[in-house]
């Protein structure tokens, strides 16, 4: 196999391993304080500590400095100065990310977008919201509610997570099966490159000349540009939503029912699955009324006009019955619908109640392999001596196995880490991917070596260099270097490719 490096010197993009430079701190702080008011630059250890990790707290690093600009002009000045001084810059939104994407750089500036927190404009006729990146996801829908509109992507963390972070990770949520990911709901971005230049990508018109740099920027994990404004698409609130909850005595049957719903031509607005370990963990906490005797439960939501919902709910019930559902309940009120969802939305905190620590995975597989994956995870629980509760965005094959461990017990985190890597490797073998919506960050760098060849990773570095020639934006994240993959030593697996790819198979 030929290996290309696209002539990229990867070492320039992996300065995350560079030695911390506390001796540089006073000089860099002074240079930035010359540009910003004093309260915008934090440099004392006790001020820096709250920023040392994001939502994945096993990866921690204190930054050299934290900078909180208030305006785009200030932000551009910071970037220009960091570029001049060759200081890495790591952007941070609300800090709710689950892959360590906002973990600071020891010798770098942690750039908080927390003060970019204004909704600039809501245009009900054009159905758009222009917001700053620090605005919380849910705040957009709250502001749009007066016009009968909302912002569709709804990650579980939507009360806290920021739009800028959603853009960086291309976040999904329980409704993306029907309404799409962040990518499908962002019309335009304004951002700054490392040289302090402002650029605009996309906008209120649906097409723009040139390459689709808007699509490329969404999900780029802070490696390409710093976003300062986002133009979001708003959609009309459906007149009605109802949830069908079904019990199954076998997880395989539940997985087959998921594929059968889609095959019947139904696209539910949400289609989620929880195994018994998950329902048992959440039920005492939320009292959602889950069937604790069921091996798995499915939640399928239908939304639209009352006539449409009635038709679709009936169709969903028929499929579920035909696939061995042991009990079916349909939400009779909005309160009951929210109660059915509450367990799913609270699965992560519930894991935190039953186990000292948990490690959330995020792989995606073709939905007809759900049963296979669940059985494999059961075997891994034996192999690693750790429990795992499973909550899935089943409709789009996105898995969130929560591996339960105790960081204070020697060796448990290492076992959980290997358990997770095994799940991700199986995702790739089954034709899926190592991350559906949480991003690679620092967490899944090794697994990237399994999913992508050296030439593919070189192409990613080529993109990185086209936007960020000095390699200062979030260095060391998202794309592993050749050296790191060589050290990890696992084989690159061609995406679920079978031995004879030339044979048609459908």
């Amino acid at each position: 196999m030929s290996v290309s490096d696209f002539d990229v010197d990867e070492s320039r993009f992996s300065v995350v391993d560079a030695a911390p430079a506390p001796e540089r701190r006073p000089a860099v702080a002074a240079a930035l304080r010359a540009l910003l008011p004093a309260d915008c630059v934090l440099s004392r250890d006790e001020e820096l500590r709250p920023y040392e990790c994001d939502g994945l707290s096993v990866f921690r690093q204190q930054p050299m400095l934290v900078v909180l600009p208030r305006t785009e002009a200030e932000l551009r000045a910071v970037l220009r100065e960091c570029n001049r001084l060759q200081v890495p810059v790591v952007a941070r939104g609300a800090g709710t990310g689950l892959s360590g994407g906002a973990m600071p750089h020891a010798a770098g500036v942690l750039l908080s977008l927390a003060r970019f927190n204004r909704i600039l404009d809501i245009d009900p006729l054009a159905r758009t919201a222009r917001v700053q990146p620090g605005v919380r996801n849910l705040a957009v829908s709250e502001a749009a509610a007066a016009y009968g509109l909302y912002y569709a992507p709804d990650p579980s963390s939507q009360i806290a997570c920021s739009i800028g972070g959603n853009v960086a990770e291309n976040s999904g949520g329980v409704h993306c099966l029907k309404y799409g990911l962040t990518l499908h709901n962002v019309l335009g971005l304004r951002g700054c490159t490392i040289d302090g230049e402002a650029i605009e990508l996309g906008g209120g018109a649906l097409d723009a000349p040139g390459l689709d740099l808007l699509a490329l920027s969404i999900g780029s994990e802070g490696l390409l540009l710093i976003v300062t404004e986002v133009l979001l698409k708003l959609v009309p609130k459906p007149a009605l939503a109802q949830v069908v909850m079904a019990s199954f005595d076998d997880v395989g049957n539940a997985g087959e029912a998921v594929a059968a719903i889609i095959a019947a031509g139904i696209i539910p607005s949400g289609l989620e699955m929880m195994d018994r370990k998950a329902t048992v963990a959440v039920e005492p906490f939320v009292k959602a009324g889950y069937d604790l005797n069921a091996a798995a439960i499915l939640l399928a939501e239908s939304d639209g006009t009352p006539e449409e919902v009635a038709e679709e709910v009936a169709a969903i019930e028929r499929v579920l019955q035909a696939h061995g559902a042991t009990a079916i309940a349909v939400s009779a009120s909005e309160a009951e619908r929210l109660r059915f969802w509450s367990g799913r939305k609270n699965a992560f905190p519930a894991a935190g109640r039953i186990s000292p620590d948990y490690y959330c995975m995020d792989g995606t597989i073709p939905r007809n392999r759900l049963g296979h994956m669940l059985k494999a995870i059961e075997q891994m629980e034996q192999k690693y001596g750790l429990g795992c509760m499973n909550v899935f965005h089943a409709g789009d094959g996105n898995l969130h196995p929560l591996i339960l461990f105790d960081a204070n017990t020697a060796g448990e985190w290492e076992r959980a880490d290997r358990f997770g890597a095994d799940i991700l490797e199986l995702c790739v073998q089954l034709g899926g991917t190592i991350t559906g919506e949480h991003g690679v960050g620092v967490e899944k760098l090794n697994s990237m070596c399994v999913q992508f060849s050296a030439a593919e990773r070189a192409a990613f570095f080529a993109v990185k260099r086209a936007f960020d020639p000095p390699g200062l934006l979030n260095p060391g994240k998202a794309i592993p270097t050749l050296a790191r993959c060589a050290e990890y030593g696992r084989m690159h697996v061609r995406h679920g490719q079978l031995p004879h790819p030339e044979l048609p198979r459908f």
Partner: protein
Amino acid sequence: MHVARMDAALQELRHRVMDADAAGTPLRLRGAGTKDFYGEHCEGALLDMRAYHGVVDYEPSELVITARCGTPLSQVERLLAQHQQFLAFEPPAFGGDPTIGGVIAAGLSGPRRFQAGAARDFVLGAVLLNARGELLHFGGKVIKNVAGFDLARLLCGSLGILGAITEVSIKVLPLPRTEQTLGLEIAAPEALSLFNRWGGQPLPISATAWNAGQAWVRLSGAPSAVRAARTRLGGEVLDDTGAVALWRSLRDQTHPFFRQPGALWRLSVPSSAAPLATSASQLIEWGGALRWCAGDMPADATRDLARSAGGSALHWRGGANGSRFDTLAPAVLEIHRRLKSRFDPRGIFNPGRLVAGL
């Protein structure tokens, strides 16, 4: 990469590319040629992508189809229709039978783009044949996938300037259970106002169009929802055959509007932009977001018109020679330059087709 087992047609493509790269001679990538008119002028030795064809994978319950670049669109659509599924972005065929690789490389979408999304929204994965003859897999076959930069979607609409797309995985959707088209006799300003107001309401509208005092609205979905919306919106119901022919003629540009002599301009603007101040004959699609103008309009004034409405203008076809796309902002152009020089250092792939000089 199992070179020994690689398809002969793919091997041939790789060798043509590697030879061109070694010699530094440009290639002009082409499928069925249905979009030869589209984009900037481009010179190069023809590289016909049609020999590498065939559906590689299709599992209806997974809502994804994977096909080699040379697969005819008609073959893909027939196969999907057998399972009551379709390509919801309604790629235009322009009266021919484009290849699926060409559909994605051009990234054009039809009337349903208004509601369902654009070609790029449905791209899940792509295989790129780069200048070194390497086959790079980006994205995959699953809907949610954030591993690595989204190069599969970058390739959609790239018009081949970064390399040749050899295989694509595209999300498909179930066919709407029922469709009905309403016709209303109204002027353009009223049509634009209605399209935008309806867009903010939970109505099953899947396409809109307006031309010469006549608006059309297509409703798609559950029979009960379409019935309820029809009552609410009013207008005349078109017979099914006429409705299918109408949307097909808009999608493929066989509608009489598109057959006028002279230049045709495509203005992409926010749907709520005011009616354009032009005397040119217009056809409006996508809820107001796409405004076609026919007539030999001065290029600079047309581009200014689009820009002041918050969008851009594309000289689609006909009329005088000159650049087709709007120019890019300098900082954005610089990123394009760097991408091109990294992916195609010797400039062999479709030079200048998307951006002059690249």
